[in-house]
């Protein structure tokens, strides 16, 4: 029932293509990034590829079902995967990843000094952008191991999908930045022409900050920066290297969104950004889309029919016709009187065998079913409108749809189901239940 059918996103060829080496699932918070990443990983593995999925903050039960609930920051092989491929999965431990960078680049003594530095500890435990930076870092590590055909990456829960692209650079620039260097060695910078003012500002600055934060804190920062600086080639450089990986042809971005205004607006920003950065977008996953097996019945008609039934029930009660629910079933097709008024105004060829001896409970239940249906159809219409708006803005973006399942997704069977829907949702109009 889509007005402007979007280009379908065919997921399987993408998963099967040996050239596809990295798939990144991005999107606003809570839209289904982790679920999509895990489902794609499982599907690719069951189709024969050797896959690793890097998840970030997965729901507890999902992590348990994949056997990755213990945080050890390395991929574990997932059991009960069907077919010829392999699925490995891990959950990102950002602090551990940071610690590992330090340990890999310093001797035991120095790395201990850094790991014990209070400033380092607050930085690695949850500084803005640390999680994004470490996700990128881990992706780079996994890629360089050349152990897997395909790496599927989940992205951290943030309100904006853009954070994934921006935060690592920001953190990298910050740590490598002029400012922090100046803080370490004001004299060096101040000696250069034109930087005098900066120097003056700086000493006053360190003085003020020292008063404000305590001198110890500043010393911690300085020690930390000094230790990091001599060890390895800079945070910014590392972030840039992974960023380039994301621009490589073997990378495919999938933007995940729910068919809601905010999520789709976010998706549109992200699509535009990817284009600007020349990062390869595979398409949009519209997750948690609603459908109906009875879409031929509109919300308005369903509501009118429900009201009609309610009125008749009142009439029946007044006429003493209740209590017929145990009467034997009227044989189908037996001639029955016409309903008093037909809601759709047509008494079609298949006959209107409405009857006055309808089970009262069934009749009450049916009004409920009709109201539920009306609600579903109103939801469908709203989702359709937001979707059409996105397609009008970005007709070039391939789309696949995944139905909203009534319960959440927390085991391999659920992931398989989502995988099937991801694959089918691009080729048929609505994959909804």
């Amino acid at each position, binding site marked *: 029932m889509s007005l402007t059918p979007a280009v379908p996103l065919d997921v399987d060829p993408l998963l099967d293509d040996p050239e596809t080496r990295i798939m990144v699932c991005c999107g*606003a918070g*809570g839209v289904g990034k982790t679920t999509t990443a895990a489902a794609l990983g499982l599907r690719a593995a069951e189709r024969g590829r050797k896959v690793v999925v890097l998840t970030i903050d997965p729901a*507890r*039960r999902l992590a348990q079902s994949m056997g990755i609930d213990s945080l050890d920051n390395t991929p574990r092989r997932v059991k009960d995967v069907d077919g010829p491929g392999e699925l490995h999965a891990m959950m990102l431990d950002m602090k551990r990843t940071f610690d590992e960078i330090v340990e890999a680049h310093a001797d035991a003594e120095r790395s201990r000094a850094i790991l014990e530095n*209070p400033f380092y500890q*607050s930085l690695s435990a*949850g*500084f803005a952008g640390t999680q994004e930076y470490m996700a990128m870092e881990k992706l780079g590590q996994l890629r360089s191991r050349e152990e897997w055909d395909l790496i599927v990456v989940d992205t951290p829960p943030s*309100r904006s999908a853009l954070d994934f692209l921006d935060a690592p650079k920001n953190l990298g620039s*910050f740590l490598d930045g002029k400012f*922090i260097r100046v803080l370490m060695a004001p004299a060096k910078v101040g000696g250069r022409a034109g930087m005098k003012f900066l120097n003056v*500002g700086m000493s*006053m*600055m360190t003085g*003020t900050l020292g008063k*404000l*934060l*305590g001198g110890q*804190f500043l010393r911690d*920062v300085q020690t930390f920066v000094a230790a990091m600086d001599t060890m390895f080639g800079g945070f910014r450089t590392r972030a840039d290297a992974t960023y380039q990986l994301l621009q490589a042809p073997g990378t495919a971005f999938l933007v995940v969104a729910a068919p809601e205004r905010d999520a789709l607006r976010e998706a549109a920003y992200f699509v535009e950004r990817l284009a600007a950065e020349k990062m390869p977008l595979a398409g949009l996953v519209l997750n948690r889309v609603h459908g*109906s*097996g*009875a879409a031929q*019945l509109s919300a308005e008609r369903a509501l009118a*029919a*429900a009201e*009609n*039934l309610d009125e*008749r029930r009142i009439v029946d009660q007044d006429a003493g016709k209740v209590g017929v629910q145990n009467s034997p*079933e009227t044989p*189908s097709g037996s001639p029955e009187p016409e*309903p008093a008024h*037909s*809601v*759709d105004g047509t008494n079609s060829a298949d*006959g*209107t*065998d*409405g*009857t*006055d001896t*309808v*089970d009262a*409970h*069934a*009749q009450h*239940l*049916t009004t409920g*079913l009709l*109201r*539920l*249906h009306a609600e*579903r159809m*109103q*939801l469908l219409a*709203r989702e359709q409108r937001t979707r059409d708006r996105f397609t009008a803005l970005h007709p070039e973006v391939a789309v696949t749809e995944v139905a909203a399942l*009534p*319960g*959440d997704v927390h085991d391999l069977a659920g992931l398989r189901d989502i995988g099937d829907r991801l694959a089918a949702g691009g080729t048929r109009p609505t994959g909804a*239940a």
Partner: protein
Amino acid sequence: MSRLQVVSGKGGTGKTTVAAALALALATEGKRALLVEVEGRQGIAQLFETEALPYEERKVAVAPGGGEVYALAIDVELALLDYLQMFYRLGGAGRALRKIGAIDFATTIAPGVRDVLLTGKVCEAVRRKDKQGRFAYDYVVMDAPPTGRITRFLNVNDEVAGLAKIGPIHNQAQAVMRVLKSPETAVHLVTLLEEMPVQETVDGMAELKAAGLPAGRVLVNMVRPAVLDAPVPTDVRRQDIAKALSRAGLGGARKGGRAEQLVEPLLAQAADYEERVALERRQRAELAELGLPVHELELLAEGIDLAGLFRLAAELRKQGL
């Protein structure tokens, strides 16, 4: 009712919306409430359909019965500059500090400083009095950072303890903690009836309690109204439903008739609905175990506009908040 109401919750569950509705509800009948935003996203301005808020208290709405809602979007950089100005009289040097990124540095790299500035500003508004000695605001409602960060955010004392053992930041942190840990404050968590937000709420409340912060209420948002008043009986006869549909004018009840064709899809939708309701029931049970007051706010199908906000506020009042 505590005078400082802190609203947190998992991202996207409706913290900003619920905080705004709460401010409206508290301002009803001639009271004054201040709604404070600390994450610099201008969410309040969007909600009240006004232009972006500057860093000053502005009236954004009049509550039923003549109360007033003021709003403040705190700008951390400006707050720090004010602060430095107050204690160190920097003059024009403040601007220079900003230019070279020093302010950015201080507020970003030392998250504790940022949090002390934000909570400090909020607590100042809570304690502020006018010339007659009355409180400037009857209530202050804070649209706070999400559950994952709320305890650290409010526990500024611990955060800055390692940084500043003496001096103005230290003193400020002490003053803030006196307000935040007192009965003057209540920290509420917004959740949905879904597994992850509920889990976060349970964990979040435990963390707050462990840190000695006053756990307030659970605010369940976007609750869908019940449509079926009883479960579909397992032995329901398809034919009876087909007949009822037909009776309602939706076509023939015979096999292959238009009414009959609706039966299976309608029952499938009912099964989805019941599965969801069962899931919601489990989430409600988990929340009940917290032993805290729980309030529910309905999902407004057409989304939130100003009218919707007033409806949520009325609902909160009805529930005695």
